[in-house]
């Protein structure tokens, strides 16, 4: 019997259980986050009027102003949260590779620049080295950052410039809901955060429900970049892998030893994924991948089981990943699913 003739592997029982557990955890966390935010985050009022003390995703305790009017947002994923909570008007600065060099286009897609009404004057240079003067010029009262900015730089902002920094780097999909609630509390838009988290919870719940009804999990290579040596993908413990799992796929790089491995064409050939999903945008398109090593030899390519997806849906841990990325990937891998 050839591999081509094989029956689709049944959905592993352990995965079904873990997805069910995941769904429950998501709902519990979301509920807890919305109903008892202060307890979950150690978010509490301080003796100083108009301030809050929060614990961020890195476990740092930070005292922040309540509902600050001027905020610098140093991550596209946090910007997504701000926009969805109606807080765009608070944002005075965003991360750029460097205003005079790469500018906004290196961190934000043209659609995001247009949708979020970003301009070069908002650039805070985070690369090639962090330029604190570009942050100071914007006079923010608070900085919301991901690990795009190093902890050392965060300490510099806090200690030297006196601007509090909250690090939002959710470690899991459910962590996105936690961060939505945290931002909602800081800006006094708890009800909007509750509504958004409700949508996110529903999407996650629906996806896990669909997963449990699926007869099989197709193997998939989700790649976000390619070069002469192979295909960059997501390893264990990353958002990309969580996304694949909850969308009813089985990642061929699930046993990789690094979070973001590059798979050789030989590894892809032997793993023989049923589907290949590739990230597009930021200079990458289908022809880029078609020029990759042994691309035409992969069964998925021969069968036409290919799909391009917005790179941001695969790489940015934000509400858009949940609301757009999961349904899109689910529709690719299981077109007949409800």
């Amino acid at each position, binding site marked *: 019997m050839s591999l081509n003739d094989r029956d689709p592997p049944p959905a592993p029982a352990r995965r079904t259980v873990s997805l069910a557990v995941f769904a429950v955890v998501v709902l519990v966390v979301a509920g807890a986050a919305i109903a008892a935010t202060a307890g979950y985050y150690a978010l509490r009022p301080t003796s100083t009027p108009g301030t809050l003390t929060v614990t961020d995703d890195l476990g740092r305790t930070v005292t922040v102003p309540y509902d600050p009017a001027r905020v610098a947002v140093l991550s596209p994923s946090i910007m997504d949260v701000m926009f969805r909570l109606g807080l765009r008007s608070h944002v005075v600065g965003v991360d750029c590779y460097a205003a005079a060099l790469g500018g906004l286009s290196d961190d934000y897609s043209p659609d995001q620049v247009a949708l979020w009404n970003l301009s070069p004057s908002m650039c805070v240079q985070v690369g090639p080295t962090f330029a604190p003067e570009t942050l100071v010029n914007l006079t923010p009262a608070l900085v919301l950052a991901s690990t795009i900015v190093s902890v050392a730089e965060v300490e510099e902002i806090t200690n030297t410039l006196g601007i509090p920094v909250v690090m939002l780097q959710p470690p899991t999909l459910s962590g996105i809901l936690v961060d939505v609630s945290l931002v909602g509390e800081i800006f006094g838009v708890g009800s909007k955060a509750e509504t958004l988290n409700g949508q996110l919870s529903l999407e996650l719940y629906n996806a896990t429900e669909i997963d449990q009804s699926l007869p099989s999990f197709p193997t998939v290579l989700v790649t976000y970049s390619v070069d002469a040596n192979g295909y960059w993908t997501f390893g264990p413990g990353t958002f990309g892998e969580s996304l694949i799992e909850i969308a009813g796929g089985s990642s061929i790089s699930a046993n990789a030893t690094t979070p973001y491995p590059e798979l050789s064409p030989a*590894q892809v050939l032997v793993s023989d994924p049923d589907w290949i999903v590739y990230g597009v945008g930021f200079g990458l398109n289908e022809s880029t991948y078609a020029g990759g090593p042994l691309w035409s030899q992969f069964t998925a390519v021969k069968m036409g089981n290919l799909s391009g997806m917005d790179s941001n849906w695969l790489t940015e841990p934000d509400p858009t990943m949940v609301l757009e990325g999961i349904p899109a990937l689910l529709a690719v891998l299981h077109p007949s699913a409800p």
Partner: protein
Amino acid sequence: MVTSSAPPRPAPRVSRSVVIGLSIGAIAVLVFVLSPLLGSVSVPPRDVFQILLHQLSGGALFAQPCAGTPVSPRLCGAYEVIVWQLYLPEILLALIVGAALGISGGALQGVFRNPLADPFLLGISSGGTIGAAIIYVYQFEVARADLFLPLFAFLGSVTTGLVILGIARGRFSSVETLLLAGVALANLLSAILSLVLLYNPVGSEQVTFWLLGGLGLASWTIDGIAFGAIVVLATLLSLHGRELNLIQLGNDIAQSAGVDARRVRLRLILLASMATAIAVAFTGIIGFVGLVSPHIVRRLVGSDYRIVLPGAAVVGAIFLLGARDVSYLVFPGSLLPIGIFTAFAGVPFFLYLLYRQRQSSTMGLP
């Protein structure tokens, strides 16, 4: 009657060279045989050899390449592609590029009469890197990267080589000045590369990866182009062994023996630059092969450049293929740039050379 003493018999020297040559050849064959077994995916040895025999015999042997092994036809098909279209071209490219770098290093060390000279000293590789960076950074027809990347890298390297040649033909043509000009040019090109990457961070990751060298572009087409070019260049370089031997004795002696040292130097720099450009074009920057290989040959068979040049090609080929194999043995399943492993072997050797040079330069001092 006056009798003259017999000249020293060259025979033992030759036989030693032959033995050493055969030994190196045997090691080369051994490495070459073992190499197909090593790669990012482990293919069972029996399947590897059956697939190779099947392909080499045009399908006459082992019509079913994985017959008798517990490998499904589908997986066998994947193994065939992996062994024949990935591993073997990769192995051959390692041999070709290693040979190119080895013989270039030998020639340049002879030209400059400097044991620390190597193909990258004159900035030739930096020029190639800028050519490659243009492809990666500006996403210029990346879909055809397999064609444009080596082309741009080659053009960058050769352009740099021509600039150096221009300097050599000009007023500042002493060996020392040429070396210093090469080092300065290499630094200038590195600065330009940094500027290009600063302005265009997209692609900088790939450029960095490429800077460390790799065999990922290998294919039968690439191997064919590289092999044809390197055979011609290596042959031309090897034919200059006698002239290089005379140049080692000084310009005057070379001149009295009918060798135009300046003209020979220019010719060798051009040929070595082109050989290096071929290597850089297809594999990126792989350091230390050109530095180490000629030294190993000299240690084994002496300083006769008629032997050093082809010998450096053979040792360079084995060295680079060995580095590839070690990379897969130490980090199975990983795609680490091969330049890292040549550096691991090359840097200690480089330091050893410096130590030896220092020792010899202080000998005889009070």
